[in-house]
């Protein structure tokens, strides 16, 4: 029987250097931090720097397949560079860029695309198989636990398990969907690798390069965004009712009118921008950007009467069934915003 897995060539690993199997092509198998300063590695370091810079500028990482050896070796060095910047924005951005690139590459594989996807998935330990049931119009079948591990944070009703075809433990997926989930795995994998808690001492050359990358990122992205999501919003200080609404929206569940209003007015009052609130509501299949924008901006006081609405009081929320699992602090307050203000002080 012919294997359904495709054997990857060196070029494939240059495209997907984070696969475990790629390690056998590394120029220096276990690279030491000190080695990075040696002149022989200059090319590799240069390419590594480029990788991170491309990520910052275009959220993509080009693939230089002509120099496959260098390309593969530059990946672990790029990880070190991203870690050395100590900027979580740059680190996340790099992971995201590699993931996006992978999604494009996997989707557009010309030669034995299905087999390549299978081999890729196997490298990450996924239980992915080709769908053999001709009655089902999907190309792939993925074990539901692997599916859940990679989708629970994805927005959008179509990723909810209950909206998928699930049978005998397998979730059925199109090729594009499979590529999307695999790229999620890549993102998580890289994020974990760059977020090292204890950094080694880097040679001056590396520190220099990391500084250069940071400057570029500051120019391109601007300081505010680099520091991440509005740091004024402290999710840990949300009262139970808001936390429940927030969770519900994030996992694509529908909110009642009161629920929507409460969440929106709460978030805009504690300093989340209307854009970010709108992003949050994007999960609904009935998402209507113009309508949502109008409502959110109205509540935020950027339209119409120009008054900013505040969320209802606890008493009102109780009668509408929005108040859930009130905790100890809830006993002492009458308004969810008061809860937040009190808790933020403690949390800081």
């Amino acid at each position, binding site marked *: 029987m012919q294997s359904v897995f495709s054997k990857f060539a060196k070029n494939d690993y240059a495209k997907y250097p984070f696969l475990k199997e790629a390690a056998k092509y590394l120029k220096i198998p276990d690279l030491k931090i000190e080695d990075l300063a040696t002149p022989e590695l200059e090319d590799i370091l240069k390419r590594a720097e480029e990788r991170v810079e491309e990520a910052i500028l275009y959220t993509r990482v080009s693939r230089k397949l002509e120099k496959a050896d260098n390309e593969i070796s530059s990946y672990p060095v790029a990880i070190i560079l991203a870690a050395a910047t100590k900027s979580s924005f740059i680190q996340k951005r790099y992971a995201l860029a590699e993931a996006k690139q992978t999604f494009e590459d996997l989707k557009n594989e010309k030669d034995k695309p299905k087999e390549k996807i299978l081999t890729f998935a196997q490298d990450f330990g996924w239980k992915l198989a080709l769908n053999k049931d001709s009655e*089902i119009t999907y190309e792939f079948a993925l*074990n*539901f*636990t692997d599916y*859940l*591990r990679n*989708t*629970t*944070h994805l927005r959008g*009703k*179509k990723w*909810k*398990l*209950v*909206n*998928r*075809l*699930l*049978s*005998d*433990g*397998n979730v059925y997926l199109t090729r594009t969907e499979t590529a999307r989930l695999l790229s999620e795995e890549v993102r998580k994998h890289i994020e974990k690798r760059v977020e090292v808690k204890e950094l080694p001492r880097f040679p001056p050359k590396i520190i220099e390069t990391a500084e250069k990358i940071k400057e570029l990122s500051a120019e391109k992205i601007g300081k505010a965004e680099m520091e991440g999501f509005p740091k004024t919003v402290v999710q840990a200080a949300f009262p139970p009712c808001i936390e429940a609404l927030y969770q519900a929206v994030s*996992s*694509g*569940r*529908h909110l009642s009118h009161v629920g929507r209003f409460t969440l929106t007015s709460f978030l805009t009052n504690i300093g989340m921008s209307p854009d970010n609130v709108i992003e949050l509501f994007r999960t609904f*299949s009935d998402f209507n950007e113009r309508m949502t924008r109008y409502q959110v901006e109205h509540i935020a006081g950027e339209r119409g009467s120009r008054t900013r609405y505040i969320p209802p009081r606890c008493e009102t929320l109780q009668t509408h069934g929005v108040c859930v699992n009130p905790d100890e602090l809830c006993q002492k307050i009458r308004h969810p915003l008061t809860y937040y203000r009190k808790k933020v002080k403690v949390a800081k």
Partner: protein
Amino acid sequence: MSSQKFTERKFGDYYKGNDVSICVPTSIEKREFGFLLFERGMLRHITFKAKEALESFLRATTCSDVYHSCSYYESPEAEMDRKGWLGADLIFDIDADHIPTSCERVHDGWICGNCSFSGKGIAPKKCPVCGSEKFNIGTWPCEVCLDSAKTETAKLLDLLMRDFGFSEKEVRVFFSGHRGYHVHVENEAIKTLAAVARREMVDYVSGLGLDVFFHGLNEKNWRVMRAYQDIRLDDLGWRKRIALGMQNFILSANEQDLRNIGLRKSIVEAILRNKDAILKSLLETGTWGVIRGVGFETWRKIAEHGVKLQSAKIDTVVTTDIHRLIRLTGTLHGKTGFKKVEFPVLAVDDFDPFKSAVAFKGGTATVFVSDAPEFRLGDEMFGPYRSQKVELPTAAAVLLICKRRAEVLE
């Protein structure tokens, strides 16, 4: 002897006797155990290396309820945040309290926590005498309620085995000893699933967040084919379940049922008039939408109702709580004196809780019953009783005392 003492002695006798058969969870040394000591509080963070140690503990300590963690911990004896979570079994709880039944009015009761005024059925919002909102609720492990819980359990088992692909060996089903059933899934891949992933599984079995759009029931398909070929009886997953739900609903619905899901009178009449044609088309070609004048919106409503009929009504909180304590199989339920017992998945239809879960064999006791509905234990019927003295088999006496419907007499 007080009623309390009587129950404690009977529970103690059970754990010391020969009839007791405790079924310990796998990897017992990684589990936390918890014990309710009748009115004397609770013991937590207890561990045992082996079944024998647990059994001798049970012989030495009189407990009203015995629990173990559904989780596996590195140090199960430590405080919660130091235990070191290793994983957890997947647990489902189906409790009659979450399923509305018509008999609740007959056998349930409430007592005002403030002035002791009492009534039958579901408690009012406010006490009619003193206006207090705190009540003690008295439920009853009734046959009808338990039967509806069993129907939900059967639906859940089907979902777990057909859709999630768990084998008969991985899925275990139990009578809780009170008003419901437990389903445990032990499987390596499941063990380390995070709470959010379990939440997705809960949403799947209870049909929460299901949008029929993604199962082929959308306006585009309707315009193209005038039919929903995706939702078919011979399909898989929720598609098949929705089709089944629609079929069963159309088969049995009367005018009122159809009106209740928000259909207009003329449409209801069209459906009822063409019932046979609809069902025939469904069975033969697998298509809906063969009736003129019955359009997309109507079918969507019927499909959404079909989802409700096919989903399993579980207690959604239990499954996502990965630190939950669950009752140990073979131990007694403090509210009834019944055992938590396991039965084969395939025997779900024939399982009789009022036979299999009876722990006390032999002996009698004389009790004064304040109020109890008619009930059955094994093949024997009892009650109803109201303010009367009766001599009952031990099991029946313990049940009434535990449910606070009777006091023991010397």
